[in-house]
């Protein structure tokens, strides 16, 4: 990258013009760092971490649908069993919650990378326009979702922190019982302010993934006409499933349909 470019600058030593594979001179770590340092590499990593997070968000929503499943004969809510099941995967070969922690660490890494890449690229771009336009911009192609990725991303970030404190640690929940997921969700979302915040945050999430999924094809370098044809549909479909599923929880609890 930076070092390679030196090769064609006029006046450089002639021997530098000879072709040289980049792998000859960089270790894996220095390669990753310089890849991440370039905006295109960083965007690529951002898209990959985005895919991982979208996958998580989708399955998180699917898992939560257990809330609607009637309790078994033992009277234990199915979503409580499901939550317990996630912790018990692989037991006794894998220690309790082992796989869960592997997934959590992977997810945390994906989030940290994604957030760092997102804010840093946004900041870099911002700095390249020190004097802003005076006239109001007329947007022809740039969608509302695409222009507000940092804002929707920030809302989602704040929400994730709140959501963990609310339903994982229970620190901001006034009737939290560890392990009783159904109880915690229903008593937690019963409050209109809390439910409203869940709704706003998930609408922001929807805008974020709507542009995110569409954009990802581009960032990962897909030039396939077949994929291009289904891109918008795919982004809209996945977003609709995630948003509708996630919105159903606060809405149905708030309206008393689930209690």
């Amino acid at each position: 990258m930076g070092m390679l470019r030196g090769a064609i600058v006029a006046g450089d030593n002639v021997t530098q013009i000879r072709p040289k594979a980049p792998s000859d001179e960089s270790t894996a770590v220095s390669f990753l760092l310089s890849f991440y340092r370039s905006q295109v590499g960083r965007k690529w990593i951002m898209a990959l971490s985005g895919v991982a997070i979208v996958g998580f968000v989708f399955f998180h929503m699917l898992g939560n649908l257990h809330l609607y499943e009637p309790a078994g004969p033992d009277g234990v809510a199915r979503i409580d069993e499901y939550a317990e099941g996630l912790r018990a995967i692989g037991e006794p070969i894998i220690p309790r919650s082992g796989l869960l922690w592997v997934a959590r660490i992977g997810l945390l890494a994906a989030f940290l990378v994604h957030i760092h890449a997102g804010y840093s690229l946004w900041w870099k771009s911002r700095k390249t326009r020190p004097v802003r336009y005076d006239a109001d911009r007329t947007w022809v192609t740039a969608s509302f979702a695409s222009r507000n990725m940092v804002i929707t991303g920030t809302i989602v970030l704040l929400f994730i922190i709140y959501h963990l404190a609310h339903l994982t640690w229970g620190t901001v929940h006034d009737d939290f019982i560890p392990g009783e997921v159904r109880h915690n969700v229903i008593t937690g979302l019963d409050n209109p302010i809390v439910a409203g915040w869940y709704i706003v945050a998930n609408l922001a999430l929807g805008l974020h993934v709507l542009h995110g999924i569409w954009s990802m094809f581009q960032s990962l370098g897909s030039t396939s006409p077949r994929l291009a044809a289904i891109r918008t549909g795919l982004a809209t479909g996945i977003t609709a499933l995630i948003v509708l599923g996630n919105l159903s929880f606060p809405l149905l609890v708030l309206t008393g349909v689930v209690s």
Partner: protein
Amino acid sequence: MRVNLRVWRQAGPDAPGGFETYQAEEVSEEMSFLEMLDMVNEELVVSGGLPITFDHDCREGICGSCGLMINGQAHGPQLGTATCQLHMRTFSDGDTIVIEPWRSSGFPVIQDLAVNRSAFDQIIEAGGFISVATGSAPDANLTLVPKVAADAAMDAAACIGCGACVAACPNGAAQLFTGAKITHLNLLPQGQAERWKRTEQMVDVMDEFFGSCSNMGECTTACPKGIPLEVIAELNRDYVKAQFINRKLTAQD
């Protein structure tokens, strides 16, 4: 017709700038936007003022010299054309038109509405060329180019380097320009020898001057040549590929 202009005036690269208002009277609908500015400038000169500086050359949409931000749109409200191809019939009597230079730290203002676009030249210098053996001209049909590839390369080659993509981009990114140049050369057999080095080097120089692409697509809309967003995917693809490919085995550098 008569239009009110709010024009960015700035004496030099480091001078503070600001907006001045002018009234252009008796503007004919057939005038091009630049002819209207010429008329305003004539009056300014006659009245002892300094004319408004703006870039232009061919005035037929092929050289890429002109470029103004008109009412918040690069090259004005008419899509698919350069500023010089915009006519006053696009506006109505009594309109107020805000005219600003391209805004990007990669395009510093030289004076008034003229900006220094040599960052684009530097991107080109970094790899926007192919190496050919000198000597007698090669036979015209010696290198076969599939029609689809020739067409796509030609579409990308339509870029005139005006900078509207950067100006229109909310992020001030130059991916459409750089992508067009990379796509143009990387699709053709003649561009294969330096394919990966070219991509890497051009993207690295682009990175030094411009913002980061969020795939919003405002660039393609502003582009007088309608360069497709696809060239950005091509840029991304070849850049990442350049990092992993074994160049010794592909006979490409």
